[in-house]
């Protein structure tokens, strides 16, 4: 089979879950034939419809055939109710892939809305990042989350945007990879989010319209194992498998609303107040889009990681690497001078 034919098969299979199901068909037939069903007069459902159609002629049949369209629209709070999501049988393409773009909700400004979803279904597709075929992985498990949906909304809605052309250098460690689809249901809206847990933490998350470089795969794995979206870890210096990076950091070095900063020096120090001068100094710096790299040799004695935490959602990490150019980077923005920042940090680290 050619690539084209293969692609066509994949695209077709990828839309399976959007088809109506037999239960809906039966319900529709049942509703169309309800007046003719009586206790003690058992006629199978389909027969009742057919007999009635034959008797009443084609005009009546036309009404039956469009029966499910004649139902009044199911409206909740002004929004049309959308059927529950179900897991696609296969993950049709290379990650990140979603079976459908957001329906009934804005998917362009955030990965998910800030509203708590009414349901969350996690579909898992296990493979290995060394597999020859990185598309078409079969569904290996599904789970509906029963808790932590507000935390899920808080974390996913603040994931940072990956702008077109934003290149991220990736390691190339081979190993197990799980592609997840998170199907979120809201009154009148649905959103699929693709997230991947893999050794290099380098596959973007996406809803089909908004792509993020945030690292949510490990948290999805924890949620899939427990059935609940995990608690946020307390503020700490960055480590592996940790979700760092926040919406807005591509326009502001430290987006508004932080509640603490952890200065990762040889001895980490967390401040919940008195650090606004640092935020102001960072946000005053002339900045440009980050290339996620610097040249030169950082001086260990004047290099810091600053972790700004928020009431919900991931923290912002600002690295200050004196001796490397540009020295300041938050993954979204870079600034060319640390001279005004270092004294502020050193002041905050002084013993009280």
């Amino acid at each position, binding site marked *: 089979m050619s690539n084209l034919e293969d692609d066509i098969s994949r*695209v077709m299979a990828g*839309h399976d879950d959007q088809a109506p199901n037999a239960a809906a068909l039966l319900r529709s037939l049942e509703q169309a034939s309800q007046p003719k069903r009586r206790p003690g007069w058992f006629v199978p459902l389909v027969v009742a419809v057919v007999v009635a159609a034959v008797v009443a002629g084609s005009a009546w049949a036309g009404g039956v055939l469009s029966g499910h369209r004649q139902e009044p629209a199911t409206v909740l709070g002004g929004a049309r109710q959308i059927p529950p999501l179900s897991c696609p049988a296969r993950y049709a393409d290379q990650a990140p892939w979603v079976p459908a773009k957001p329906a009934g909700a804005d998917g362009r400004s955030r990965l998910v809305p800030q509203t708590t979803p009414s349901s969350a279904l996690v579909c898992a597709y296990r493979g290995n990042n060394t597999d020859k075929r990185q598309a078409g992985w079969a569904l290996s498990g599904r789970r509906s989350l029963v808790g932590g949906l507000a935390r899920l909304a808080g974390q996913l809605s603040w994931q940072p945007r990956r702008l077109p052309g934003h290149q991220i250098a990736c390691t190339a460690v081979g190993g197990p990879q799980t592609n997840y689809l998170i199907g979120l249901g809201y009154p009148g809206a649905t959103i699929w989010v693709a997230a991947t847990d893999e050794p290099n933490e380098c596959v973007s998350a996406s809803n089909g319209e908004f792509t993020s470089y945030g690292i949510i795969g490990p948290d999805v794995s924890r949620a899939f194992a427990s059935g609940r979206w995990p608690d946020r870890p307390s503020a700490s210096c960055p480590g592996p498998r940790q979700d760092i990076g926040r919406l807005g950091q591509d326009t502001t070095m430290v987006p508004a609303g932080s509640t603490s900063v952890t200065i990762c020096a040889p001895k980490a120090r967390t401040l919940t107040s008195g650090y606004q001068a640092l935020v102001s100094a960072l946000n005053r710096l002339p900045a440009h889009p980050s290339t996620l790299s610097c040249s030169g040799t950082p001086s260990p004695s004047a290099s810091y990681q600053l972790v700004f935490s928020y009431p919900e959602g991931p923290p912002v990490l600002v690295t200050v690497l004196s001796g490397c150019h540009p020295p300041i980077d938050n993954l979204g923005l870079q600034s060319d001078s640390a001279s005004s920042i270092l004294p502020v940090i050193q002041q905050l680290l002084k013993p009280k």
Partner: protein
Amino acid sequence: MHLDDVLTELVEHSGDRLLRVAYQLTHDPATAQDLVQEALLRVYGSVRRRGLVPEDWYAYLRRAVINEYVRTRRLRSSTEVVTDVVPERPTAGCPEDRTADQAELWAALGALSERQRAVLVLRYYEGLADHEIASLLGCREASVRSLAKRGLAAMRPLVTAVSAGEDRT
């Protein structure tokens, strides 16, 4: 087992499969459901009148779904403009494009003529051989090959562009 029970069971056990085929043809859930419902009622009425029970209910109903699809599309064709020209090609390798590419492929399938689309669905979704498709559509095998060739030709520029733009980072 009573014939009516057989048909009720068929809806429960083969309905999903028929609806998926119908959705591949129509790209619209409500229209797909209408199509299967219409085909079901036509076939069942015909079977009852003639007293014949098909050996393969699924194949029989699938044929009805395909025929119904071609028939209804033909009825509407005077008001629809069918094009085999893919509207736009993707240009970038951003991960968002992969979804867009899939959506464009799906849209391109939806823009084919009803017979081209039916052939591609039967060939690549149902996995039927060309002679089976010819029998189902009531045409010659050469016509099936021709319809498939023209359908694929309409899709090819899009897929070439997709492959060229894939993000492999």
